[in-house]
């Protein structure tokens, strides 16, 4: 435990003469006393004749000492007055009395005067008593101040310590112990270096040195302190020297305030800014800062530069309205920024980039302040991927519902086809049987004897035969049945193809016979091409099965086939001519190539780059969504690791080569 040594009096103190108030009703005695005090080097603070006067004078200008007669006039006697002065005003009182009665001296002693003198007062006695009283008072003051210091030190809400020049702790307060997590004993054996965070050591040492060398009277720094449990606290540390009269510095007074909280707040602010920055970068939000008055772009981030495809310098100063916004149907927007009503939340739009490409976006505009100026923050997300996903999903859903429908319709159609076919088959054989009977009968009728016997009846037979045109029946009935059977078979094959096309089974890659997929698709899409083109297929009979998503692959063939038919349609429109679509399959090493050629319009040079972009279409409204080839690209390249090559010549036609790996375990073999 530390003991508190009295704080040494300041050198200036005690130099000024002490002021003494005399309380004496006898003016002569009072004058004598004042004269004596003067001789002793004291300053008279005046003379009061009674208690009231004395208290009034003390109130007005408190003296350092009161020299008071016990016997004074008035309601309050001298002993009571002494008690009041000493206790309430904390001024030492020396009582002077002519009484020697035991009773009075006992009463007087009870109020603890700083001195008790008997009249007539001896000069030297007076001096001793006064000096003693004053010294005692001074000691008491010292004691009090020391107490006050101790309690301030101990109860301070901040960590405080006295640190010796060598850095060891001289004394520490409770708060510091709590702050650092050590006990007093533990700290007593420590130096301030021991609780200073490694990285801040040098800075802390410099501060100490500055104080000790007298370069500065106070030094404040922020440093990290290491607690006993190893955790870290930020301290706002103020150092000031404790100086002796000689100017010597026996120790340094250190006040440590825990600022971890505010430090953490600052750190958190930095972190949250960093997080925000990372998130914005991660979700790839393009951000434009717009001047609401002029609609000029004040600033833009890197992602905005990427999105627009222009550097920041080119963007700055431009009006954000000139960026090529379109609504989600592709119409240019007149009120594209809608600044008038301020906020704009998650509005789907398209952005036509300077290079002509169209990007689907979502835009949010929010008003805000930036460097004290009100601005609009325009946040733009490129949603190309989401759109692709939506597209994929909607195809899948469409395929699924079409598939269910087709399966149901197929069942409905198949049952009547079954009995139509069976009946036709039966009619065929029944007709053959009837023919046999008829032929036998006619042969019999041809016999002369029978002819003769038949007579009139024979004429009926001949008439009926002529009416019915038996030769025609003989010729046409078998043909009509045969053609009907052929028709039934064709219906059956279309239903089968439709079912195969639309219900190919699941989201799983399986072995698919590409040739059969081509045949089915050509059959299903017959209506799309038969008026404008003939379709030739040149299918590799040795083509192995390909590991792919059957439904998706059908979609690829269909989309390319329909595009080919449309391209030819543009050429042969209003003419009786027909174009030609050729579908070829070949194996090329570990790949299968599917080529679809048409004799259509061809793709102009400038469009070739864009044909796989979603929304790109040259077809009139209602004929195409511009999604067809984007879907093909998605399925072939993304889902099957394949490639698409387009050869095209304007006026001659286009060939689309699709290559996909055979896939399946040929690919995974290496991994096992």
């Amino acid at each position, binding site marked *: 435990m530390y003991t508190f040594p009295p704080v040494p009096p300041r050198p200036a103190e005690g130099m000024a003469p002490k002021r003494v108030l005399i309380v004496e009703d006898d003016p002569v005695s009072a004058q004598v006393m004042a004269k004596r005090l003067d001789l002793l080097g004291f300053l008279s603070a005046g003379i009061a004749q009674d208690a009231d006067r004395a208290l009034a004078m003390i109130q007005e200008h408190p003296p350092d000492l009161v020299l008071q007669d016990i016997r004074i006039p008035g309601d309050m006697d001298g002993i009571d007055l002494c008690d009041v002065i000493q206790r309430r005003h904390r001024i030492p009182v020396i009582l002077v009395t002519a009484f020697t009665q035991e009773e009075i001296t006992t009463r007087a002693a009870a109020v603890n005067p700083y001195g008790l003198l008997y009249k007539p007062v001896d000069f030297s006695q007076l001096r001793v008593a006064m000096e003693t009283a004053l010294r005692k008072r001074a000691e008491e003051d010292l004691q009090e101040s020391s107490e006050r210091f101790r309690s301030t030190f101990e109860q301070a809400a901040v960590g405080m310590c006295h640190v010796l020049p060598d850095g060891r702790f001289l004394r520490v307060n409770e708060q510091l112990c709590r702050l650092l997590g050590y006990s007093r004993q533990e700290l007593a054996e420590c130096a301030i270096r021991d609780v200073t965070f490694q990285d801040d050591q040098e800075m802390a040492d410099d501060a100490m040195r500055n104080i000790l060398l007298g370069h500065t009277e106070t030094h404040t720094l922020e440093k990290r302190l290491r607690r006993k449990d190893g955790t870290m606290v930020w301290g706002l540390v103020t150092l000031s020297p404790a100086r002796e009269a000689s100017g010597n510095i026996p120790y340094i007074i250190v006040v440590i305030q825990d600022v971890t909280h505010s430090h953490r707040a600052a750190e958190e602010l930095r972190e949250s800014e960093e997080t925000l920055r990372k998130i914005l970068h991660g979700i790839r939000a393009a951000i434009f800062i717009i001047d609401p008055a002029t609609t000029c772009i004040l600033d833009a981030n890197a992602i905005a530069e990427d999105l627009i495809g222009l550097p920041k310098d080119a963007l700055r100063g431009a009006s954000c309205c000139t960026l090529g916004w379109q609504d989600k149907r592709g119409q240019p927007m007149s009120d594209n920024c809608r600044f008038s009503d301020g906020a704009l939340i998650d509005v789907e739009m398209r952005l036509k980039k300077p290079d002509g490409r169209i990007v689907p976006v979502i835009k949010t505009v929010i008003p805000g302040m930036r460097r004290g100026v009100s601005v609009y923050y325009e946040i733009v997300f490129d949603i190309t991927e989401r759109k692709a996903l939506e597209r994929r999903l909607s195809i899948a859903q469409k395929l699924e519902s079409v598939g269910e429908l087709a*399966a149901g319709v197929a069942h409905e159609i198949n*049952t009547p086809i079954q*009995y139509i076919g*069976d009946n036709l088959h039966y009619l065929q054989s029944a007709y053959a049987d009837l023919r046999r009977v008829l032929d036998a009968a006619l042969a019999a009728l041809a016999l002369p004897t029978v002819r003769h016997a038949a007579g009139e009846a024979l004429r009926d037979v001949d008439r009926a035969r002529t009416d019915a045109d038996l030769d025609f029946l003989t010729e046409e009935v078998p043909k009509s049945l045969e053609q009907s059977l052929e028709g039934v078979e064709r219906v059956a094959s279309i239903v089968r193809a439709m079912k195969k096309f639309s219900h190919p089974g*699941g989201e*799983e*890659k399986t072995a698919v016979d590409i040739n059969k997929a081509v045949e089915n698709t050509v059959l299903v899409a017959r209506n799309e091409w038969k008026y404008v083109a003939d379709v030739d297929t040149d299918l590799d009979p040795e083509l192995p*099965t390909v590991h792919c998503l059957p439904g998706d692959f059908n979609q690829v063939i269909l989309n390319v086939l329909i595009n080919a038919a449309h391209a030819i349609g543009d050429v042969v429109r209003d003419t009786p001519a027909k174009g030609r679509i050729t579908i070829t399959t070949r194996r090329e090493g570990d790949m299968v190539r599917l080529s679809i050629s048409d004799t259509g319009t061809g793709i102009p040079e400038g469009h070739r780059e864009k044909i796989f972009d979603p929304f790109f279409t040259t077809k009139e409204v209602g004929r195409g969504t511009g999604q067809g080839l984007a879907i093909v690209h998605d399925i072939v390249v993304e889902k099957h690791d394949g490639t698409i090559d387009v050869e095209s010549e304007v006026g001659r036609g286009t060939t689309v080569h699709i290559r996909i790996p055979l896939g399946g375990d040929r690919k995974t073999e290496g991994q096992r």
Partner: protein
Amino acid sequence: MNKKRILFVDDEQHVLDALRRMLHGMRGQWEMQFATSGNAALDILQASPQDVIVADMRMPGMDGVTLLDEVRTRHPGVIRLILSGHSDTNTALKSVRHAHQFLLKPCKAEELMAAIARATTFQDIFSNEAVRTVVARIETLPSLPRTYLELMRELRREEPSLRVIGELVNQDVGMSANILKLVNSAFFGLRTHVSSPVHAVNLLGTEIIKALIISLHLFSRFNMDRFPGFSLELLWKHSLTTGLFAKTIAQIEGRRPPEIDDCFISGLLHDVGKLLLAANFEESYQEVLARSRAERRTVHDMEREAFAASHAEIGAYLLGLWGLPENVVMAIFGHHTPPSAPTPGFSTLLAVHAANSLEHELVVLNADYAPHPMDTAFLQTAAMDHRIEVWRKACARRLTEELHLE
């Protein structure tokens, strides 16, 4: 030959009428009845025995699957076919166990007649009613437990490999037969016959394979405990080697891939009748095997004595019922006793017959077993006898390769 009794069930009267008319020409060979509901069909079956039932799948009241299941329980000997216009995968898969064959509407007259004819081809060779009934009742063939476990392990992986599944199935007599039955049913609409189990697995895809094996229990384990005297492992080894030999012979003869597949599968499945007998007539078959060893006579002859049919005929009957390709069925049917007047030149039967003999010759398990000499007269008639030496050498080489691999 008795007339075949065939019962058609369809809720659409038009379909039945048309069938009746169309098949009128078959009245010399078939005796046909028609029912418009499952219950009516069961009544007819109760009143008069039938050989074949051809049922629609979706019918009000009792559907086709339920009906066939019921028929299987009450009249197990009846051959069960489905003729349906419906192609919902789940329902179709459910019918796999209950029906011998699955035909898709619209089905041409010839196809329907051929399917019924194929299924009934071998019916008459069984004078033993019990054997005939047992074969028709069979839903699935058991697998080698070891292979079965490996397959289950593969299927439970996050991404089962079709290649691994295909290879496992390809080694197992039971699994191969089960999967080929399914893949050759009209439900999958394949216009050509598939006889390679690996190809079949690839065509079906993981999802369907999983559904078949895990939910529908298409494969089962052979219960070794019930049949302690029978070495399934040896039978499997013999079957697989015969399959490999038949394939080797076909390759040497420069046959096309589908025919090579046919030879392999015929070799693999040629003894499927033994599996069937072992699994269904434990005691009598055990006795057959014991006696064949003791008396040094072929199992084949002993089977004929005990069951009035050999494993070759029984196996062929089952696979015929299941709609496997005709040349495969014929090869299995005749692998012990080839017909006296074969078609000249190469045939699946010839390859399997030769492969089986070579297997017995080259892999000697037990000197006590009766030899399986090659039918040289058969080979001579087919004008292939001069190739035997080449085959023997190639098969011996193949065998050493296989042994090295192990």
